[in-house]
């Protein structure tokens, strides 16, 4: 049996009510009012597709064995690096193995997430791999006052494919590829370029998805209503329902397109919607998943009894519940770099990243891997050769020790108005890890007024800096005070 062993989801904490966009920008493009239902998810200023992918991947692997991964596939149209395998950054953040591992990026189309899933299934079918983690994520910047700004949200999803302990068996798949260009992003361009909506709706989503699903049904001899849920993206609400009508699908079996709760998350979206369906699924349920983008991938899964044994991850449901309203459109625009606010001369500092140092310390910097003294058990971050415990002091007696999934407590903190920050005050502090060790970290996803000494924290992989001069993005881990717990 080949299929899904576990799933994970990540919808960033901030949500922008679409009426806030309308209030700020309808003077410029009144038609945005037509799709102003609900809210869209907004990644924090220190997130990108890769950092969100890491969050989804950890969620998926919680309780799983990251050391057993044979490959990490990362799908996104908003990869931070055009040439530096983003999947391997993600795999390093997971402290996944390097030897015998074959990571890959899937990109170039918002259907890349399902394409990566099919590649994972085929790799396992071929016998070359046992465990493949598929992560899809997108953070698409949009111009102000566009329909895209209204439709799109940010998010990530992860699925672990394997051969045993399967919660949803893959029972077939089919792909259709064609050069239908509803939107494109030219090389070096900042934003997507979109064609007329009516054409995209009627000739794109409205035809390509039902035709691919019909072709799959024809191939397998199944009927559309054999499925308990049919999952496909389409940010036009009317067209989304129209596709079901065209297929003769019972409307109760259509998975919601999530426009009101987060918006279309691009490459991640078919998997985000699929995970939302899995979260409600019972053993025996048949799920049909389709994507869109220069064609359509169709995958058929059947939920197994094992889904009852899965330790529930945060998933999509959990991350949707963890929400805070972003009440400022200006803040959203600043976070997405759509407007220019002065950082001051202090903000101009831009030291180069020593790639040699990054290579030597990749586990520490990307995976938050420290060390633990084999003699006395003291955990260390950063990793150290000499034990810090004054009663021990052992030298070169360290083993690897992962901090990324540890919880901790705030020892001291501040909100700094002097530090150059996109979202002042810069909040940071010292934390002690439960189980030993302590360090000083930036805090994120919190407000200064909510924090106090002793409050719990969790850790999150975030963009640490962006070197616009050289095009480099640096990542590290931050602490998230658990203000909601």
């Amino acid at each position, binding site marked *: 049996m080949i299929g899904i062993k576990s799933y994970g989801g990540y919808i960033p904490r901030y949500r922008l009510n679409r009426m806030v966009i309308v209030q700020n920008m309808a003077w410029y493009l009144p038609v945005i009012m037509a799709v102003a239902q609900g809210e869209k998810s907004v990644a924090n200023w220190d997130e990108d597709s890769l950092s969100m992918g890491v969050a989804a991947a950890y969620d998926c692997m919680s309780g799983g064995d990251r050391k057993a991964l044979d490959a990490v596939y990362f799908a996104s149209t908003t990869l931070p690096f055009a040439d530096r395998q983003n999947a391997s950054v993600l795999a390093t953040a997971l402290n996944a193995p390097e030897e015998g591992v074959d990571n890959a990026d899937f990109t170039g189309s918002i259907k890349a997430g399902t394409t990566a899933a099919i590649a994972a299934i085929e790799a396992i079918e071929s016998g070359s791999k046992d465990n493949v983690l598929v992560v899809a994520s997108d953070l698409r910047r949009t111009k102000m006052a566009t329909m895209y700004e209204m439709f799109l949200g940010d998010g990530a999803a992860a699925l672990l494919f394997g051969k045993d302990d399967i919660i949803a068996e893959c029972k077939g798949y089919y792909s259709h590829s064609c050069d239908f260009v509803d939107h494109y992003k030219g090389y070096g361009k900042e934003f997507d370029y979109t064609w007329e909506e009516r054409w995209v709706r009627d000739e794109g989503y409205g035809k390509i998805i039902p035709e691919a699903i019909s072709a799959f049904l024809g191939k397998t001899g199944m009927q559309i209503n054999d499925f308990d849920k049919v999952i496909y993206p389409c940010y036009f609400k009317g067209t989304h329902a129209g596709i079901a009508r065209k297929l003769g699908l019972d409307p109760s079996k259509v998975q919601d397109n999530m426009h009101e709760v987060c918006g279309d998350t691009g490459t991640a979206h078919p998997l985000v919607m699929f995970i939302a369906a899995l979260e409600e699924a019972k053993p025996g349920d048949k799920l049909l998943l389709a994507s869109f983008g220069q064609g359509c991938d169709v995958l058929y899964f059947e939920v197994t009894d094992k889904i009852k044994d899965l330790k529930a991850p945060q998933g999509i449901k959990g991350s949707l519940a963890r929400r805070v309203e972003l009440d400022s459109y200006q803040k959203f625009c600043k976070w997405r770099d759509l407007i220019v606010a002065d950082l*001051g*001369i*202090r903000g*101009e*500092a831009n*030291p180069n*990243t*020593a790639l040699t*140092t*990054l290579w030597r*310390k990749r586990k*520490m*910097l990307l995976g938050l891997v420290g060390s633990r003294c084999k003699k006395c058990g*003291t955990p*260390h*971050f*950063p990793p*150290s050769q000499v034990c*810090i*415990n*004054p009663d021990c002091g052992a030298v070169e007696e360290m083993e690897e020790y992962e901090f990324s999934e540890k919880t901790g407590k705030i*020892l*001291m*903190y*501040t*909100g*700094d*108005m*002097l*530090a*150059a*920050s996109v979202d002042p*005050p*810069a909040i*940071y*502090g*010292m934390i002690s890890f439960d189980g030993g*060790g*302590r*360090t*000083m*970290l*930036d805090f994120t996803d919190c407000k*200064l007024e909510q924090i*106090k*000494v*002793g409050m719990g924290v969790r850790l999150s992989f975030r963009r*640490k800096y962006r070197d616009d001069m050289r095009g480099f993005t*640096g990542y*590290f881990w931050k602490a998230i005070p658990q203000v909601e717990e």
Partner: protein
Amino acid sequence: MATGIKDKVAIIGMGCTKFGERWDVGAEELMVEAFQEAIQDAGIDKNEIQAAWLGTCFDEVNVGKSALPASMTLRLPNISVTRVENFCASGTEAFRGAVYAVASGAYDIAMAIGVEKLKDIGYGGLPEFSSAMGTLNGLWFPNVTAPGCFAMLASGYAAKYGIDMQELKKAMAHVSAKSHANGVLNPKAHLRKAVTEEKILNAPMIAYPLGLFDCCGVSDGSACAIVTTPEIAKSLGKKDFVTVKALQLSLSNGTEMAYEWDGAHFITAAKASTEAYKEAGIKNPREELSLMEVHDCFSITELVTMEDLHISERGKAPKDIMDGFYDLDGKLPCQVDGGLKCFGHPIGASGLRMLYEIYLQLHGRADKRQLKDPKLGLTHNLGGFPMMNVCSVAIIGKYDV
């Protein structure tokens, strides 16, 4: 068996510039200003100086690397000059180099000069630090500034002693108000305006819970000391001269940051001061010291330091502060010259500037600030951050004490 530095070295000349936003001059002119005062005070010829130490911290936006700026600017007679940098202890480190050089017997007369030109960077606060922390730290250290790191100490202190932040802020406000009052009396201070505690408490936030007046100024300045042996001092006709009683340095080893620490005190300052009292033969510093010049980069730093120097009991510094114990007319005046609060903190100069005030006080030359018959004074520098720092403590006093 080491015998310590006590009374092995005499200070025979000191100089200190006017501190402030010295838009008119650079580090070079500042050094000349401090040096000329020191050499005239010592009453020796420049060519009698056999070795010198230069303390600067942010060399890249200041004098540049090496000790050449001091040697060339002052036209020193091709002697050994060494540049030292150890964060905010840089000035005291320069002094330490000169004092140890004389104590070792290698030289008869040595000089320490500290300088920092901070106001050539174009923005407020200390120079941005990210290119100066090394290739690895730069990749993971949080986006910190000096006020932010010391502000954290206030959160740790309030939590440890269960003090409401507003109450702690009142004690911190008194720390700053007291120094501002002292600064008014000092023509060399940068800030010479009395500030009320109410104004301090209502100032804009810089890094929670530190407001504007909880932070010291940023300024340019230089200070200089010329040292020799007591025997040579005597032969030069010096009477009632000042000698070094203790000189200690303590550095973090990572414990605070990565192992164990209450976040409410400085491990290094507690250690350095203990060692300094031992070296100086001081049993009860609260009674024996006449005055102190400590590293009040931020009000909370001074507050906590009163405990680390073993003057106030743990958790009791706010009470001593509110009681006026450290005021100019208190039992143990602290920041008599106005402190970093009013002098600002041209890093390489600060340690020597503190010694300058004690030197003036011991010679009875402190004018309106003059204390009655001071005998022993302590200086303290704290460089870096509460969770990883360099701490220096110096004690100087009259030779016969």
